[in-house]
Each structure stands twice: as C-alpha cells, then as structure tokens.
C-alpha cells in the first residue's frame, strides 16, 4: 500500500489524477475501520490531513451566500462554529459516534463513504446542499440529491476529490431525529431531517437508513408546501402532521436487517417525521 501525503490541494488533485485508485483519508474513522475489517485493502491512501485549507470554512459569494464547509472540518468544529447557521446539521452531528469520533470524523468523510445510514445526509438533503467536487479538470457543484448513487456509492469520478460542501444557512427551524438500538455509538435504525424555509414557504426533507441511498421525500415536501398554514399561529394541525408522516414513510424503501425490520422502519419514520415537523414548527414561535 502506498501512502501519499500531498502538502497542498493542487498536489492532492495531481496525485488523485495520477492515482485514481488511491483512497482519500481525512478523519479515517471509516477508512481505518474498513481496513481493519479486511474489507479490501486500498492500493494507496491519499492523506488529506496536511492540506491546511481544507480545515477552513467560509461564505460563498453571490446574492444567496452559502456556508462552504471545507473537507477537513470535523463534526466537533461544525457543531461549535457553524451550529447557529446550520442547526439541523449540528443536531445530526451531535449524534455521530462519540466525542473521539466527532473530534476526528468529518461531514465530507460521511459523503465519501455514502453509507445509507450516515447521519450527515438527511440534513444535507433537507437543506439542499451542494457538493463541491474538484479535479485537475476543474470544479463542479453536484446537487446533493444527485450525489448518492447506490449503497456506499457516490457520484465522484475517479480523479475527483471533495473540496467542500456548500450548505445554505437555515431559513427557518430545522430538526433531525434518529432511532437507534442504544443511546450513543449507534448506527441509525432510521433517521429523518426536516428544514423549513419560512420565506419561500417550503420544507426540505431527508430520510436516512431506510433505502439503498439517503433520499428526499418529495411528495411529503410538496404536500407541506401546499397544505401547511404557513401564516398560522399555534401548533401544526395533527391530521396534517400525520399525513406528512405517512408520505415520508411511503418515500422509504427499507429492508429487514439485524438492526430492525422494514415495517418498523416505516412506522418509526412516520413517527419521527410527524414529531420533527411539530418540533420545528414550535421553534418558529419562540
């Protein structure tokens, strides 16, 4: 196994172009586990940790600035430094592993791994993030909904690296919910995120661990856009919340596995969606 250590982003891109077989490593909390479990041995590791600019975040230019979260920003820093703008993502990040894992692990690593159970995905889907992929050939922004291609497969080309994720700052309350078989250090049985955009009167959704890829619940989003009383005071109409939950559950395609049964996942998604909507809506009032 070769161990490649670029000092700059340009070097990293050049190395990846020369060695498309190289596996990038950031926090290593997925990569090292896979190696230890003997799930294939990478021919080369491309260590991105020395590339200093990756650990920064900034605002994008333009009329609707987004947070550009560098590939090296850990969950711990995301929670502490960006939680005010990205409350849904921060809430999801707090459920990842343990403090040690959050000190090493990154959101971009979650995207690289593209596990259907990754906790970062639902809030990214709900808020309409963009993945900034770069290669020596240039840069492209991949809408998050087009990023997940299959179980643990994403849309990156062999020579591409993720430079950053662009996430719009919250335009309203956001909420993340996760069911696990214990209270910490647990892979989600299923998870759900909702992001309300109070100005545009839209809701974004994200479903985790209940289909081959993380996915949105489009029908549920359209339903909320059309049916939610965006000007109304007081709590969400229970019947509407229930219907929203049903539509979210219908969008899932779960399987039975060691962590839970498919029908349980559908049921729990409906519950989480209903509750997450209620919680988010209630937050709007304070």
């Amino acid at each position, binding site marked *: 196994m070769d161990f490649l250590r670029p000092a700059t982003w340009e070097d990293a891109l050049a190395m990846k172009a020369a060695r498309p077989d190289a596996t990038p490593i950031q926090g290593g909390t997925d990569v090292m*586990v896979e190696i230890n*479990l*003997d799930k294939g041995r990478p021919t080369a590791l491309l260590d991105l940790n020395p590339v200093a600019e990756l650990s920064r975040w900034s605002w994008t230019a333009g009329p609707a600035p987004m947070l550009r979260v560098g590939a090296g920003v850990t969950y711990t820093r995301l929670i502490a430094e960006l939680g005010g703008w990205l409350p849904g993502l921060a809430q999801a990040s707090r459920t990842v592993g343990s403090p040690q894992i959050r000190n090493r692990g990154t959101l971009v690593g979650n995207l690289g791994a593209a596990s259907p159970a990754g906790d970062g995905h639902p809030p990214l889907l709900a808020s309409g993030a963009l993945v900034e992929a770069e290669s020596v050939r240039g840069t492209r922004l991949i809408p998050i909904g087009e990023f997940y291609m299959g179980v643990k497969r994403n849309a990156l080309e062999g020579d591409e690296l993720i430079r950053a994720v662009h996430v719009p700052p919250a335009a309203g309350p956001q909420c993340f919910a996760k*069911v696990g*078989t*214990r*209270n*910490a*250090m*647990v*892979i989600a*049985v299923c998870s759900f995120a909702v992001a309300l955009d109070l100005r545009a009167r839209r809701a974004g959704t994200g479903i985790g661990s209940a289909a081959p890829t993380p996915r949105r619940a489009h029908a549920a989003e359209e339903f909320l856009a059309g049916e939610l009383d965006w000007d109304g005071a007081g709590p969400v109409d229970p019947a509407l919340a229930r219907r929203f939950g049903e539509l979210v559950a219908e969008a899932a395609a779960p399987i039975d596995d*060691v962590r*839970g*049964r498919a029908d*349980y996942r559908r*049921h*729990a998604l409906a*519950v*989480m969606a209903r*509750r997450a909507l209620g919680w988010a809506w209630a937050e709007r009032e304070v």
Partner: protein
Amino acid sequence: MTVWREAVGTPAARVEGPAKVTGRAGYTYDRPVTDPAYAFPVQATIARGRVASIDSAAAAGVEGVLAVVTHRDAARLADTGDAELAVLQSDEVGFRGQFVGVVVAETPQAARYAAGLVRVEYEQRPHDTELRADRPGLYAPEQVNGGFVSDTDEGDVDAAMEAAAVTVDRAYTTPMEFNSPMEPHVSVAVWDPGERAPGGGFAEGARLTLFDSTQGPHVVRSTLAQVFGLPPERVRVISPYVGGGFGSKGMPHAHNVLAALAAWAVPGRPVKLALTRQQMFALAGHRTPTIQRVRLGAGADGRLTAVAHEVVEHTSAIKEFAEQTAVGARMMYAAPNRRTSHRLAALDVPVPSWMRAPGEAPGFFALEVAMDELAQACGLDPIELRARNDPEVDPESGRPWSGRHLVRCLREGAARFGWAERTAPGTRLVGRELVGLGVAASTYPYYRLPGSRAVVEYEGGGRYTVRIGAADIGTGAWTALTQIAADALGCRLRAVRVEIGDSDLPAATVAGGSSGTTSWGSAVVAACRAFRHVYGEQPPAGAEAGADMPDDPDAERFAMHSFGAQFAEVRVDADTGEVRVPRMLGVFSVGRVVNPRTARSQFIGGMTMGLSMALHERGVLDHRTGHVINHDLAEYHIATHADVVDVDAVWLDEEDVHAGPLGARGIGEIGIVGAAAAIANAVHNATGVRVRDLPITPDVLLR
C-alpha cells in the same frame, strides 16, 4: 469467629488505583521482554471439516516473518484430551474461527499481514450451528457447570399443573452473549531453552514463563503444565493486572497454547500474542443461547404447587460446557413438585464457557419473568407473590438457610424505589412515554473453593507482606485482601502489602464463582493467625508463616446463598418503542461487605451488564457459515454511558456467621442476576407487552 474489625467494612480506596490511573500498572501486552516477536493467528474459515492443504510460502516470504506454524509442524502436545486446547495438533476443524495456524514475525504488522497471505484449502463437511428445541440429538449432560446434576424431579409436576388453579407455561429465550472485557485476551510466552526432545516435543528441561491476562494464574499453570507435559514447577504464570474477564479469563483458552507453541517455534524469542476484538468472539468463550420452558402452577392465592424449568442450550461439538441455567429454580421457591432439566445440542460452534453468573443470569430471566406472569394471573403484587413462596428451608436439600433475607430485600427495595406508585400495565403515560416499574428476585450461591494458601512475612519496620497467587480482575480483591490482612494482623492498612498475580506465589483458586474474597480471604486470615500464633506481636524481621484455607464445615450443614431484589423503571416511547431505563435499584443480602466502595462497583457493574443483556446484547450466528457476524463492538451492542442513568445498589447490614471467618458470601455475580427480568417486567408494566425473548428491541414493542 469473626475477625477484629477496623479496616474490613471501610471504603478503602483501591491499593493499585494510583498505578492504574497514572499508567504505571503494566498490563500483560505492555510487559517489557527482551527482543520480542509477535504472533498473529490464522483462523479457519469453515465451520466443520479438515484442512486439505496449506500454502504458507507467500507468508513465509514476507520481510520480518520468522515462522509460520501449522498443524503440520507445530510441536506435539503431551495431553490433547481437551480439544479446545489441542491447538494445531490435527487437521480437523470443529468451528469457524478455530486456529489453523500462526505467523510469528518481528512486528505485529508483519505478522498480521503475513497471516492474511496463508492460503488454506479445506475439505468441508456439513455443519450445524442452529439451536432449536425440537432438533434431534439433544442429550442430557452427565452434570452441568458447578458439578450439579443435569436433571431433578421431585413430586409430580404434571399432575400438579393439571390440578393448579393458576398456571404459567411459557418459553423464554436468551441469545448468544459475549463477555467482552475491555482488555482482550493476551499472552506473552517465554521459553527457557532446556533440552529439546527428539521429535519437537517438550523435554523435561524446558521452562515456560507466561505473562497472561487471567483470572487464575495457578489454574493456567496447572492446565498448561499438563498440556505441555511439564512438571508444574517448570511453568510460571504472571498476571498482576487484568483489564476485566467476566469469566472469559477463568480458564485457559486456545490462545494460551498458541502463544507457547509460537514461541517454541522461534527459539530464544519471547512471543507476544493479543487476540483482536473480533477473534475474541470465536476464541474467548461465550454464553450459550438458551431456550427455556418454565411452568408454574399455583393455587388462587398464589402459593406455588409446581415449578418446572427445562432448558435447551448448546455446547461445542469439540468440548462440552453445560451452563447450569435451571439450577437456581431448584432452591428459589417453595413448591412440593419441582422439575429441572438441561438438554444440550452439540453444535459446530466455538466453545462456550463461563460468563458472569453462568446459570443464574439466563435462568433468572426466564424464572423471574414467569413469576411476574404468575403474579399477574393471580392478581397479586409480584413482591407479595414472592413473599408467599419464600421457603423456610432449602426445598432441594432440606437444610436450613444460613441466612435467607430475600423478602427483606424486596420490602426494603419497594420502600426505597417507590414501588407503591406502580399502576396497572399500560396505564401510565407521561408525555409521550409509557412508564413502568418492574421487580425481580436474584440469588447466587456461596462458593468457597478449596486449594488456596497464604503466607505472611514480617519485613521489619512495622511492615508485613502477604503473598497469595490470587487475581484482581478489576474487582477490588487486592484492596479487600489488604483490609482483611490488616485486621487479622491487627495493624494499619498501610503496613500491609499484598502480592498477587503470580503462580510463584502460594496457590490460589480462580477468581470465579464470586468465591475470591471468601476463599483467599479465609486463607489470609488463617495465615495471619498462624503468624501471630508463632511470633506474637513482636516478630523478628524475616519471620514468615503460612496456612491453607481452613475447611468450611458449615457449608455442609446449611444452604448458603446470597439474595437480592432488583427494581427497574422503564420509559417506553409510545410511538417508536424505544426503551430507556432511568432508574435501577438493587438491594442485596450478601453477608458482610468487606469494602463498600469496591462492592458497590461490583453490584452496579453487574446490574449494568444486566441492563445491557436486557436491551442490547445479541450475538448473531449466520447458520450458513457458522460465523458470528456482529463480531465487534460496533455491531455487538453493549450499553453505553448514555444508556445508563441512575443505577444504585444498597445492601443489608449483616454478617453470615456460617460463612467462614469473614461472614461474607461473595458479591461479584449477583448484580447481573434478575436485572434483565426486572427490566422486562417493567416493560410489561409500562406497555402491557410481555417480552419473553432477549434482547428487548423497539420493534417487538410495537404490535
């Protein structure tokens, strides 16, 4: 006769605590040895068959590899009667994960890498790993663990069930469970050259030193001496610090033999072997899954007329271990008609072994949930039901109890826990959570094992050293023995230094069966008394005296058991079925408590393990491959800090005058017994859903 008390009964801090928290305590793998080599095993990838061919050329060619040892070239062992320990002695494969080879190299990395290059081809035979109650070939073992008979039958259970006003007849299951101590199983083997016998055997001149993470240095020594055909004095086992065992380090396992074989293959080099977490799932023992049928018959007043507890469980086809799951039901409740039985399926699975409270831990899940079901059927409070069935004397032996205070524990716990607030099942909704309370009884036998000896030496300057080859696996034994010696010698705690963890020290029994403090402690008391008897209060420096653990005549005349009452509160999310356990309380009757601080840790540690058993732990065997697929701590879930909120333990202030000089009955295991049942009963009280299969996962609560 009781020892003079000044140190015993006080919450002395752990004597080895500072060394542990400052990193000075050297655990086995960190043990400095000269010029070590490192071993990494090659494991069978089939569940049953034989090794047809091995190609180790690629592995042998890896830089730094010193030896690749397989059954073809491993040294011949003198005694292969224990198939688990007959490592690399034949081409037979009895379970997936069994050792089929080992690579020894200059670095752990090279050893591991090369082990992955060893190509093994197998002649596979059909295997069977699935435990079912209706499978053919179930058999009754000669005896079950602990030396108990497999079956008992008193009176006429069937007729009593027929005639009973109220009955419960249910099946309960517990899954394969894994001890999973924090420190993995580690052995560092060092051979003194000696003469090599022709044919690669172990000549009498050879001498083996094993640094080992074990619950019993003397047990490892005597077993390995026999396996290698060496006189015991030529084997030394050193093990001062152990990062947990929970029974899995109670007896030597295959890795001990593998480490020694690996070292034998590279003369002059000590060899270090540490099992990985994943390897532990196949090689460090486990708790058998159980299928338990419990039948209870009672009058309308709840008085039991029949108790039957019939258990089906597995063992490994290569070695029998019969967990004594139904034994507790023999003495727990007064019922004239009682039947217990154990049936084993000999499967192509790894070798099961001790796991905290073998027998009682799984057995009391079934028995105590069944008691809860009976209370419900009779319309009785579960505590009242147990009080009505509290036997005057041991129903099995007819002997008087040395002290049975179960009902006191239950009533004390009820008062402390707020038991009176318990409502009818499924009726207490707080916010979106269903709240329930549950109770279960707990017991564990008093064991004092013969075979320990302690020696006291006066160092001069007011200081004493007490030597006994015991083991502290994190339990606090080191501290407790220091307290016991201080009181027995009549000196200050700081004047006593206790040496343990080395087979060159006087013989000591295993840290198992909650017997350590009672067995070793009474040997220490005897040695201190012998010392004072010979030398009085003014001994000369260098004075030394020892004694064996005295006999325990009362153990023959009394039924001696500890008891406890376990309480749990659960909150079940009404919509998702997620279970949280905000409160647990254990009230125990264990005789004298030598050290309240370390005892409390044992109790709440056991209860936490019971919580984990109730809600999380489940080994998943893939019957197509014989593989435990969730063989790591990411997928084999053990309760995390976030799952454990408020676990408290208290105990009755008592002394068991029949339990040796200390009046103590042992505390290490009782904390897990009944804990899972208390949680399952609380879940029923919260939701109205009766769960009879562990673990309790959210999906089973939504029906």
